[in-house]
């Protein structure tokens, strides 16, 4: 084992680390934002909207993320250059870069998996609490923000933490569409230095550390929010 290459490549590894973190945080946040309405309409929405949401979750959960990523980057991405005038528009620099496609794919994936979790979470909140909130004169939106959503999140918090770790573990896929996040950097270093294992082992160690930090942070939050009274 030879680790003497680390100082020379530390800058690239650090930039890869930040890119991984950005991918993770952006797609987890936006995915969760999407997951709330997806879970909600399956509980209260009109039938057709609820069917669309269910179909979306089934499709996302039933196909490999790698295929979704390639479908969005190579497939959907190949349609844009044919649109007239798009090369002159302000959108073009974003449509040409790989990063927005990766964020889109991961966001949709998080939305699909977390939407399914939130559907169960919303359904698990006791009806009486929502009725009580309504009886207090809260508007439907207030009921959602003050009672329904907090109680739902409280019930599934550990599951959401697990989903966050799964998203972190999915980010290396972005390397297959030319994004130099942490794993992509390790591939680059391997090609440069002809070291087969060491760069892989190093990034594996970094991923383990990141997972551990995520678990600790979520556990800290979990201990701060009151335990659900009705399991």
């Amino acid at each position, binding site marked *: 084992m030879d680790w003497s290459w680390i100082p020379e490549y530390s800058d690239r590894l650090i930039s890869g680390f930040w890119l991984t973190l950005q991918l993770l945080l952006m797609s987890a946040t936006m995915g969760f934002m999407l997951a709330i309405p997806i879970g909600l309409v399956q509980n209260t929405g009109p039938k057709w909207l609820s069917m669309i949401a269910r179909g979306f979750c*089934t*499709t996302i*959960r*039933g*196909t*490999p*993320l*790698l*295929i*979704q990523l*390639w*479908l969005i980057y*190579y*497939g*959907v*991405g*190949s*349609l844009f250059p044919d649109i007239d005038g798009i090369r002159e528009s302000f959108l073009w620099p974003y449509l040409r870069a790989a990063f927005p496609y990766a964020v889109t794919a991961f966001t949709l994936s998080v939305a699909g998996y977390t939407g399914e979790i939130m559907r169960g979470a919303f359904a698990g909140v006791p009806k009486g609490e929502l009725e009580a909130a309504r009886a207090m004169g809260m508007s439907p939106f207030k009921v959602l923000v003050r009672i329904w959503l907090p109680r739902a999140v409280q019930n599934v918090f550990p599951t959401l933490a697990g989903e966050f*770790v799964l998203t*972190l*573990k*999915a*980010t*290396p*896929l972005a*390397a*297959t569409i030319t994004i130099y996040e942490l*794993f992509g950097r*390790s591939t680059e270093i391997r090609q440069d230095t002809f070291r*087969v*294992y060491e760069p*892989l*082992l190093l*990034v*594996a160690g970094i*991923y*383990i550390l990141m*997972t*551990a930090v995520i678990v600790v942070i979520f556990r800290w939050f979990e201990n701060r929010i009151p335990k659900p009274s009705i399991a």
Partner: protein
Amino acid sequence: MFESLQLLWIETPGRGLSLLAGLVSTIQIAVGAYALGLIIGLFGALGKINGPAPLKWLLEIYTTLIRAVPELVLILLLYYAGTAALNNMLESFGYETANISGLVAGILVLGFVQGAYSTEVIRAAMLAVPKGQVEAAQAFGMSRRQSVLRILIPAMIPFALPGLSNLWLIVTKDTALLAVVGFFELATTVRESAASTQKYLLFYLAAAAIYLTLTLVSNVIFRRIENRYRRGQAAV
């Protein structure tokens, strides 16, 4: 778009046959890896529950590390490390170095990863079996082996099935990752077909549809198995 649909058909401008071959290969790898994972999981769970302390630690390290590292990194590590270790071993015994086929390598690598998840699922299921049932078996004079084979394993299956069906869905989707190493399976054939015909959207949509069908069919099968094993039990 629609005139290019014939690219998915079996006759020659179509790539239907190679997609089909890729699907068969994907299913073979998934079934093999799943079975290997179940075997590792069964022994891993028994070891975690009943094994001596050093074995418990080893298994704990195995399941924790495997579940914390991204699958893509694991696949590369295990593939390179595994083939290198095997060839070193063959050389030291004086044999020719072997070229492991993509199919076998894929099964071994994914099976090893699945084993860690299976171990946790089966361990939890075994712990959910009421202690009295195994104690009763031992009171009847069954040996440890008999009580495991006749009582513990059949009794834990209903508890393990939801987790195990989930693992099957995960392994079918994880086979797509093997495309990154270039093994022959569905995602690889799709990528090659898409690149050579320049119909990216068409082929990736087709791939998504094939994987989705595989998942939906698996769901139906697993629901039947679950219903069968849950006969006479209270609904959960």
